[in-house]
């Protein structure tokens, strides 16, 4: 029980305010400074891949996450190492947050040395002032399918092989065409400069290759490549593959845990102030368009995000058969897109812990007969739009309609099932028993909040993010301008200097982990074998100049040919 591999991926928004009279800095430049700062605090090693990714000594990773059309406007992405159980996962998330918070003043100094003095911050949230959505994804190692569904999955993968081969070939043709066009364009500009003195004077070739216009060109080229490669060339593979995902993957969890997941924001929502001034429970929730991803596009946000399963297919462009074969395994990484970034440790622990427990129950077949949502996405929108917790959503049991239920009632139904599940387990799990107790106490407090309103919310301040943020908006934000209230909404999430951090610093928010535990977790790996092996290599090498490339599933020591490869578990593929 609670013994599966899991991890969190968190995108941190970058805030940089240049000192008066100083130039702004692009986010890729800021990321470089943050990465160098992190490197001065812990050992790091470059990831094995084209992506700008660095592994840190506890086995986790940092990366620069950006859209191809905006290489200068990306985010800092942190991924916890693979953890064994929810408590460990939250500890490593906290270690990552603390590491980045400590890196900020060092990064500020590095930027100042480069002639860019200013104030730097990282926001652990999911929605900016203009409503752009990014943020957190939760990962749980889960049984993809069993019996006939698993064989259908595998047969579908085999059937896709000829199409994959054709798409890989088409990919290479488009890459070669692009390269040729680029070389032709450079040659044409070079020739024109020779002929025309005006063009020669402007040194157009240098402009294209080196300076500002090159960045614009890079953006356009990146966007074209992204659309052509991801959306057109690979469409014949991705459409049927995502249909196969919908048909076969994680059906037990999707069917029996959906009502839990969609009512979960009452525990785990970060709270969000909309443009019209209304307050909702979740930052990510309003962006959900589907239950299961239908396409790889950014806007196709889904509760169950199969995007990670698509990556091994796209890697076939480089004939990476190993990752493709990993798709045949029974247990895969299930990625949840409906996930808010939590500042409160209790909320984060409830998020990961209750979900892991419910997945345990789904896999054990212990969730049959629980209420199911009649209109899931409609129910989600209703629940997250109602901080009074009174709204009732339509549910059914089998084909029979039941009386509409509140999110608290749905959570209680899952809680009671979890209580029985933990009680009759053959091996007692202390963590599961504690978790059920915390879940129960929190629902009791939410029940009081629903009955008595703000007068009863004190028990949850510092524990649940949406309650704490609403309290701050009602007190610190009372009578403030809309912009100041939005600033409270956003700065609540800033690492180190944010508003929640002030609560924590004054011991007004309970901590599950001591500062010493968190400091230790920066350097030491969690208990999973992959993370331990990765961490051992990074720590043993220290700052030595050794050719080593690290990834989630293997470590390559020495040269690509003739070097040594250490294989790790295949929980993560990219």
């Amino acid at each position, binding site marked *: 029980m609670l013994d599966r591999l899991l991890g969190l*991926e968190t*995108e941190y*928004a970058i*805030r940089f*305010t240049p000192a008066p009279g100083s130039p702004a800095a692009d*986010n890729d430049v800021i990321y470089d400074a943050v990465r160098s700062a992190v490197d001065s605090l812990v050992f790091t090693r470059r990831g094995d891949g084209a992506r700008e990714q660095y592994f840190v000594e506890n086995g986790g990773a940092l990366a620069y*996450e*950006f*859209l191809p059309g905006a290489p200068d*406007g*990306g*985010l800092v992405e942190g991924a916890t190492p693979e953890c064994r159980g929810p*408590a*460990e996962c939250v500890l490593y998330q906290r270690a990552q947050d603390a590491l980045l918070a400590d890196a900020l003043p060092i990064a500020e100094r590095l930027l100042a040395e480069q002639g860019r003095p200013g104030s730097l911050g990282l926001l652990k949230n999911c929605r*900016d002032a203009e409503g*752009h*959505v*990014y*943020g957190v*994804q939760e990962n749980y190692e889960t049984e993809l399918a069993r019996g006939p569904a698993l064989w259908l999955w595998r047969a579908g993968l085999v059937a896709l092989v000829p199409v994959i081969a054709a798409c890989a070939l088409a990919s290479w043709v488009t890459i070669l065409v692009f390269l040729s066009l680029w070389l032709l364009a450079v040659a044409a500009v070079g020739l024109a400069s020779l002929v025309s003195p005006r063009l020669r004077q402007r040194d157009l070739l240098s402009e294209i290759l080196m300076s500002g216009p090159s960045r614009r060109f890079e953006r356009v080229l990146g966007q074209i490549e992204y659309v052509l490669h991801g959306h057109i060339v690979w469409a014949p593979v991705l459409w049927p593959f995502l249909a196969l995902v919908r048909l076969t993957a994680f059906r037990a969890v999707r069917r029996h845990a959906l009502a839990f997941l969609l009512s979960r924001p009452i525990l785990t929502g970060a709270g969000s102030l909309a443009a019209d001034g209304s307050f909702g429970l979740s930052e990510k929730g309003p962006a959900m368009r589907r239950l299961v991803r239908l396409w790889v596009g*950014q806007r196709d*946000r889904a509760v169950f995000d199969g*995007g990670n399963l698509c990556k091994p297919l796209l890697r076939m462009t480089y004939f990476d058969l190993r990752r493709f074969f990993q798709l045949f395994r029974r247990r895969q990484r299930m990625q949840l*897109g409906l996930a808010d970034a939590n500042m409160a440790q*209790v909320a984060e622990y409830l998020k990961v812990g209750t979900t892991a427990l419910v997945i345990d129950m789904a896999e054990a077949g212990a969730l049959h007969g629980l209420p199911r949502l009649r209109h899931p996405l409609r129910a989600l929108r209703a629940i997250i739009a109602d901080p009074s917790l009174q709204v009732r959503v339509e549910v059914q049991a089998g084909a029979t309609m039941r009386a509409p239920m509140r999110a608290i009632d749905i959570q209680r139904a899952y809680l009671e099932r979890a209580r029985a599940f933990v009680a009759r387990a053959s091996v007692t799990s202390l*963590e599961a028993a*504690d978790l059920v*107790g*915390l879940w129960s106490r929190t629902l009791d407090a939410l029940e009081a909040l629903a009955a008595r309103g703000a007068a*009863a*919310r*004190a*028990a949850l*301040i*510092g*524990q649940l993010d949406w309650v704490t943020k609403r*309290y*701050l908006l009602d*007190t*610190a*934000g009372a009578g403030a*301008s809309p*912009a*100041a*209230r*939005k*600033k409270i909404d*956003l*700065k609540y999430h800033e690492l180190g200097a944010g508003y929640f951090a*002030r*609560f924590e610093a*004054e*011991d*007004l*928010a*309970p901590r*599950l*982990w*001591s500062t010493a535990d968190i400091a230790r977790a920066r350097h030491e790996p*969690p208990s999973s074998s992959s993370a331990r092996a990765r961490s051992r290599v990074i720590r043993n090498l220290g700052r030595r100049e050794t050719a080593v490339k690290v990834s989630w599933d293997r470590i390559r020591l020495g040269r690509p040919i003739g070097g040594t490869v250490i294989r790790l578990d295949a929980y993560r593929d990219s």
Partner: protein
Amino acid sequence: MSHAVQRSLQRSLEHVGVAAGSERAAEGVGPGDAQPAHALRDVHARASEVVAGIAADAAVDPELYLRTTVVPEGGE
């Protein structure tokens, strides 16, 4: 997870309820638990101080803060 870390978590979970109780004073709702009055007054004072600090900070050029935190849509 190591036993030391497990014990640390368990101790913390036991204290979550206590911390929650002390928060009642922060809103002036009244103690409702067995905490000493001076401890509750202390919590109340600290909470008021934090809220006042946040109110003052939020009023400082909020438009600039909002502008500098805008990011392009989702890298995820």
